[in-house]
């Protein structure tokens, strides 16, 4: 499965590329020296001008004070230091984001796995059910759904209409209450569990059925089979989903922006990291500070990915390995 190769064995990919390179060289003798570069030109320009160049530029900017109009002034690590010592709003946004990631991702993956297992018992109509559960994932990142969420969790929104109808009173406007606003965003993220679910379903299909049959012969119940067979056999896919969804969740923006009208309110309770960075860059024109925030995010995401890879050999089981 390509998905496993993507995160699970990148070294192998490089190795394969290198091997085929050497093999081909001796055969083809540099027959085409110019053509590959011609075909690669769009990518090369894009990589240098749109990716690598801006990356290095933002590293430089992160050590300057720059407001887009005047000249940039070198300030060294001052921006990075200020984040942690002199900007409570930054710390708030980091906290909101951590809260968001740490709650929404495990919940989302748990739902995705539970539904995938439920769907994977050879029921008729699998394709239809799979589509039904995937639909929210497809729509979830749109502004339209964020708008809908704002109504649903408003004071007279759908949720309160339903709760009111069954007898609850004194219901809050969830989206306007600091204690609940982030929870509605988390719920929105969990709601889009369809794409990890599809990945789990594809993974479940790879689990050899004879393992379950053998376990059944040994008298294992459904619960034991789930923990002793499904989870270990699925661990590469769980790992893949975890890394991917964590990276996605750290970068969330649209929903918070639309639901809070760009403020991150009430009382900064939905001020996710990228939203605060956006405010710094495009409302306050603190381009240097925003770049420093971006680089910190890269470091955090990179570190988390590294930790996930580093610990993976302890809990990720690849079929055919001991």
């Amino acid at each position, binding site marked *: 499965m390509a998905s496993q190769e993507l995160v699970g064995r990148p070294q192998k990919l490089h190795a394969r*590329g290198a091997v085929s390179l050497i093999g081909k060289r001796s055969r083809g003798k540099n027959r085409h020296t110019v053509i590959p570069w011609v075909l690669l030109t*769009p990518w090369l320009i894009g990589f240098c001008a749109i990716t690598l160049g801006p*990356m290095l530029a*933002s590293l430089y900017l992160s050590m300057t004070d720059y407001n887009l109009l005047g000249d940039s002034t070198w300030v060294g690590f001052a921006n990075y230091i200020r984040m942690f010592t002199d900007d409570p709003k930054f710390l708030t946004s980091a906290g909101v984001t951590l809260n968001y990631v740490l709650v929404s991702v495990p919940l989302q993956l748990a739902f995705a796995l539970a539904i995938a297992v439920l769907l994977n018992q050879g029921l008729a109509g699998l394709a239809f059910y799979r589509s039904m559960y995937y639909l929210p994932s497809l*729509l979830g990142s749109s502004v339209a759904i964020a*708008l809908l969420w704002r109504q649903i969790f408003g004071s007279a929104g759908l949720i309160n209409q339903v709760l009111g109808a069954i007898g609850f009173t004194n219901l809050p406007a969830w989206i306007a209450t600091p204690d609940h606003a982030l929870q509605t965003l988390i719920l929105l993220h969990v709601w889009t569990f369809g794409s990890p679910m*599809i990945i789990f379903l594809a993974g479940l299909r790879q689990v050899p059925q004879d393992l379950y049959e053998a376990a059944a012969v040994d008298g294992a119940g459904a619960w034991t089979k789930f923990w002793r067979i499904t989870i270990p056999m699925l661990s590469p896919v769980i790992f893949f989903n975890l890394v991917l969804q964590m990276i996605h969740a750290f970068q969330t923006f649209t929903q918070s*922006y639309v639901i809070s009208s760009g403020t991150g309110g009430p009382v900064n309770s939905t001020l996710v990291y990228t939203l605060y960075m956006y405010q710094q860059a495009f409302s306050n024109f603190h381009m240097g500070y925003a*770049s420093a925030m*971006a680089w910190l995010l890269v470091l955090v995401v990179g570190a988390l990915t590294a930790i996930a890879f580093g610990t993976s050999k302890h809990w990720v089981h690849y079929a055919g390995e001991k």
Partner: protein
Amino acid sequence: MQLQSVSHKKLLAHGAIIALGLLMIYPPLWMVSSSFKPGQLIFSEPGLWPREWTLDNYAQGWLALGIPFSKFFLNSVIVAVLSVVGNLVSCSLAAYTFARLEFRFKPVLFALMLGTIMLPFQVILVPQYILFHALNWTNTFLPLVVPKFLAVDSFFVFLLVQFIRGLPRELDDAATVDGCGPFGVFWRIILPLMRPALAVTAVFTFIWTWNEFLGPLIYLTATDNYTVPIALNAFLDSTGPSAWGAMFAMSVLSLLPLFLLFLFAQKQLVQGIATTGLK
């Protein structure tokens, strides 16, 4: 006895799956139904079947920003279609070169390409803005579309590389013997065989650009350049939450293209997600 309990269990599973699934898709269904309700009913009718039907919301929403929504749809279509074309052309060229041709520094460049797959976009946001600002490209579609023609979505390059590696090399060799150069092999052999992977690329590029918010929010400043998501957000800002009916109506219209893709591109969607983890 045994058989009966098994089928009971299955029935129960079907019931649970359907009930939970309906709960999941209730909010968007309710939005569709509410877009046909008179305004005040949106705050008092949690049911799906409107007691009163009206098309007022659509008429009112269509002109809510002074410019008809058709303009915003046109803008979104232009951006999305150009992005799809850009990604198809540039990513397939890059992927073919990486997968089949030999050149100096290939391992390094390929590793760099892979390295940018997981790169958070935030880190290039500010300098990109400065660059496009300096080029005077703000308030045009260029910052949204030009990068797509330069293969910056490494995800798709990787997807296509993987696909090309699965194609038999004998075909390339045969075409080369018949006198095809590298571009000829790409154009006549690889590109036609790549159709399934290209379809996945096209479908996901369309979905992503149709939903894209941050880029257009930063670059498109004049109302008549707005894409649909920006227009919806501006609609919310300009009226406040009083015009939910009209906002729902425009929201439903904005989701329609996604829903059509959902109906007609199921295979590509499922394949794309299952093989690469596209969102």
